[in-house]
């Protein structure tokens, strides 16, 4: 086995630990503060206040139904009387500077019930403690498109869209959040769901949804990625192999009964020396599933 990744990983952890211990500081103790109201905040943070008026969060300030009328700033930042006196950043809670698990609580106290939030702890962002504020802007008046920020972390994924066969991401025909749910996952794959619990691919590819009288089992068990590379590929139709026959035969070569895997070989009349046979989907046209034919021929 190649030990290079292990060494790299170990070295990374050691560096992290050393760096962190060297820079760690004790958190200062806080005395009890009182609520002052947003008007007090506005005195110093005028720009933020003005921008905030155009932000959807302004409803918290302007309406009593959330319980923080005229105290919207302190609904996230906590009571600000001490900070108002000292003007010190250390005297006020700043969710964006807290560890994500603490900072996010301010957001989740209202946004816990977003439909996208379901399955939060199954998602990689929750496990890696990516804070809400890393993608979302809380104060700005400008309309944010958090999904479009994905590329600055998922830079390798963004590069895949430069391949010739890809989803129309660059043309604006599709966005990251059309397929992915950045807040969590409800199904085993990291995809948004459509019609309760189907993978998000069927949102646009409704003709592949089925149910089919004769399903192609990997569609259901392994998902579209069993054959397709959805972000981009050098192979037509975003396949993971350069030729269709290899795509099919890698699975349909299963003679090893002991292994208990699915996918038996095709009968011997599939003579690969014939160009007719090499392109499997010329005959097996309903490769995603057929309504009437067991062999997916029609």
């Amino acid at each position: 086995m190649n030990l290079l990744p292990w060494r790299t990983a170990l070295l990374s952890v050691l560096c992290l630990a050393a760096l962190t211990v060297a820079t760690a500081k004790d958190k200062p103790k806080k005395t009890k503060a009182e609520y002052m109201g947003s008007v007090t905040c506005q005195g110093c943070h005028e720009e933020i206040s003005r921008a905030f008026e155009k932000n959807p969060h302004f409803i918290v300030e302007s309406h009593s139904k959330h319980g923080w009328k005229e105290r919207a700033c302190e609904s996230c930042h906590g009571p600000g009387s001490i900070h108002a006196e000292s003007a010190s950043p250390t005297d006020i809670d700043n969710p964006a500077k807290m560890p994500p698990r603490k900072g996010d609580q301010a957001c989740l106290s209202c946004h816990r019930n977003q439909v996208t939030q379901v399955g939060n702890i199954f998602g990689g962002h929750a496990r890696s403690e990516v804070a809400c504020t890393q993608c979302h802007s809380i104060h700005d008046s400008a309309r944010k498109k958090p999904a479009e920020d994905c590329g600055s972390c998922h830079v390798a994924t963004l590069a895949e869209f430069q391949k010739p066969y890809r989803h129309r991401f660059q043309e604006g025909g599709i966005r990251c959040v059309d397929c992915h749910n950045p807040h969590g996952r409800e199904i085993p794959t990291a995809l948004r769901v459509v019609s309760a619990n189907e993978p998000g691919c069927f949102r646009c590819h409704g003709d592949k949804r089925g149910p089919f009288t004769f399903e192609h089992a990997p569609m259901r068990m392994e998902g579209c990625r069993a054959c397709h590379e959805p972000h981009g590929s050098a192979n037509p139709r975003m396949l993971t192999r350069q030729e269709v026959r290899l795509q099919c035969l890698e699975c349909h070569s299963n003679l090893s009964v002991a292994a208990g895997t699915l996918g038996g070989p095709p009968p011997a009349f599939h003579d690969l020396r014939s160009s007719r046979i090499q392109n499997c989907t010329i005959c097996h046209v309903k490769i995603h599933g057929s309504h009437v034919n067991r062999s997916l021929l029609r």
Partner: protein
Amino acid sequence: MRRHISHFAVGAFFWPLLLVAGQGVQPAQSPRDPEATSEAKTQAQPEQETKSKGTPSEPAFRSEIEVGVRWIQAVNGHYDTYRSIVNLGEGPRLTAWDMRYDPPGLGFLKRAEFQGAGWGGDPASWLRFRAEEPRSYRFTADHRSTAYFNAMPSFANPQLARGILANQRSFDIARRFTELQLDLLPTSVIIPYVSFVRDHGFGRGVTGFVSDANEYPVVNELDDAANLYRGGVRLERRNFHMFFEQGGIQFRDNQRLFNNGRHTGNLAQPLFGRTLFLDDLLQAYRVRGSSIFTRGALNAQPASWVDLSGAFQFSQPRNDVDYRQTNTGLFIDLDSLLFLSAQNIRLLGASKQPHMTANLGADLRLGARLRWMQSWMTDRLHNATALRDTPVVDRLHWNYSQQQSELLIDLTRFLTLRGGYRYVWGDGLGRSGLLGRTPFESGELRRHVALAGAALRLASSVSLNWDAEIARSDRVLYRTSLTDYERFRLRARYQARPSLLVYGAWHYLDNQNPPRFNAFEFRNQQTAVGIQWLPGAKRLQLLGEYSRSTIRSNLEYLTPQMLSFRERSFYRENAHTVTALVSVAPPSSWSWRPRLSLGGSAFLSSGSRPTEFYQPVVRLTAPVVKHVELFSEYRWWGVAQTFYAYEGFRTHQGLVGLRIY
């Protein structure tokens, strides 16, 4: 919004970069550091700040519209490949618009937004509308239209150049997707909502009509649509949130295949002394489907140290099929070895697929430094189908479950370590192949995964995230499934200055299936780095990204005609992707400030399918009069795939237009 419009003006392949550029130093505005944010705004977003300061005097209605004309030099190479990959056409275009209305006072409408892009014949166009009064309702409408063209003669067949059979499947179709949603916000506790989604695909193509011993490429007419209705209610208390949703789908698929005139198909030689042919064909699918579904979820925080969540989804789609086939010509029935001059087939099918998904989770914060996340998920799908009036039935079962425990420890304020364990298990049953010993075959999944990770956050300037998964499987479903694998991810961001962001990512996956699983080897490594440097208040912008990825896959397969003979399937890809953009403008003291952008992106790969894909671009924007700006763009497209003679093209493309704002 200006940044959004610029995506389309500049063109497809700089969309991601320009997006970031348009956001100025958005990534630099790490919300972790308000001082840095403030500085960033001051240095790199003067215009936006000015707008912000001027909020009280902003007009209630604001708009930006971009119109342009695109032209394309004659495409060298294969035109169908150009259409399959790019498909941008010539002529006038409404490239983008953005309108926003913020009426003063407290009316029924507090804000309305209307945006769109790509209209006038482009393959990807969209529009969005949003209206809201935050105290009473929120309405959103989203419509997208996508054209999909795909016709590549040598697709999957590098020997086409030697006169061997061309690909016989192509598409020229469009999809229309419309989504409407209304959220009612009468109180903060009960929030009802309704939604309607329509997805419609239609168009033509070429596909195969398959008869025993021969197949004929014929015209294919596609027409499918699905209407989805859903409604629900959210209940929101401070520490207790839940929602319940009920919905339904209606689905139809009216695909048809035609042929009129003699067609000898792909079988060149006579069979038993006679040449098979097709004269007339009508093959029609009439599929009608429906589904009801129910969803519910609960999120609760019974104590400050614990979050509990659970969700349940159930759907039961079903389809009824009425298939008719009428064809004349000369065919053979291989079962009886009889020649036929006509066939008239009608098949009625039905399928039903109950599908249940559920999950439970607990997030426990045990003290100031410890966090324990425990979760469980299951996904169970059973497909039961039959062709009516025949003994043909089919089944597919798929039961998947996973449970995961993960412990996170804050070693310091800046460093979090985590470790855990995931167990994945499942079983599947599907139809056997023609050589199967039993009608159905089954498989199982048993996978043990060790999890580890670390997150480092140093102030607002450095963040580093490391992930590791090491899996060992007792059983897998397919011989290509990942069995014994190691996966590592490392992501880093360094905000050196408000105007300078450096970021990178590394991903490594190594799978080595043991011999009992046919020794499938798969290795994928991706390394990517990027830099955004935006000094001098938008006078200069420099963006660059580089990605290097490798894929290496080895797997033996059986050639069907000689089952004892094993061949090896190799897949190799060594790819470099480079994207760069430099944008310059004169000093802000100049009264006339054009902007020139130069850049390009390239994808170069070697291996199983060597590919070169170049997309350089030059863009010039210049103010004409107040509120009117000229934009122009030149692009070159060049694709070449060495082994595939027909899959390559190159062309020049220009775009000139006006932005009115």
